[in-house]
């Protein structure tokens, strides 16, 4: 069975500083990994994904994530945080078999201070 761990409930960073939101995963087959962002009272917006290929994937709003197979991690990063990045971030995984439901982590709240 698939699972995702987001070890930090909240990450605080000052505007302009780099940010990292951590995610580790467990799947039986090959992992398909995703990051979604949720702003207050809104839906889940797709940020980026890793399916295959380069371990560093780039996504929307300047975010990127690095797939590390040996550490089973897929941390979300951004070189310079903006106050508007403050939101709830979800890592999700599915494997390449079955009907491909996404399994989500518990979410990490990112707070970027001015």
């Amino acid at each position, binding site marked *: 069975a698939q699972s995702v761990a987001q070890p930090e409930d909240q990450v605080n960073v000052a505007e302009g500083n780099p940010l990292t939101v951590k995610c580790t995963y467990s799947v039986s087959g090959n992992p398909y990994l*995703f990051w*979604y962002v949720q702003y207050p009272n809104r839906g889940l917006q*797709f940020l980026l994904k890793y*399916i295959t290929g380069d371990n560093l994937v780039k996504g929307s709003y300047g975010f990127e994530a690095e797939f590390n197979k040996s550490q089973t991690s897929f941390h979300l990063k951004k070189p310079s945080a903006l106050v508007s990045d403050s939101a709830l971030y*979800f890592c999700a995984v599915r494997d390449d078999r079955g*009907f491909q439901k*996404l399994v*989500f982590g518990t*979410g990490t709240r990112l707070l970027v201070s001015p």
Partner: protein
Amino acid sequence: EPEVTQTPSHQVTQMGQEVILRCVPISNHLYFYWYRQILGQKVEFLVSFYNNEISEKSEIFDDQFSVERPDGSNFTLKIRSTKLEDSAMYFCASMRGSGNTIYFGEGSWLTVV
């Protein structure tokens, strides 16, 4: 850009009443899902639907819940007899095909009183 649309955005219902949440997935998508999220917490899988049948469901998706794709465009979630603990944000999602991204709607916030 095509998007998943959901109605209603917010519904308040009395315990024991039936509720139908509606979704229009992205038009060329083939896989459909319902998820729920209780008060900004974890997003939980309810059910997936492909080729006009349920392909997988979670233990949350008990006999009270049902899904339907009545006309080739709408995808509905019915809760037969709502309970207080059904209060949550319900997200519809769709995916074009294997290996693609799952896109989510804005959600339907259900409050059971």
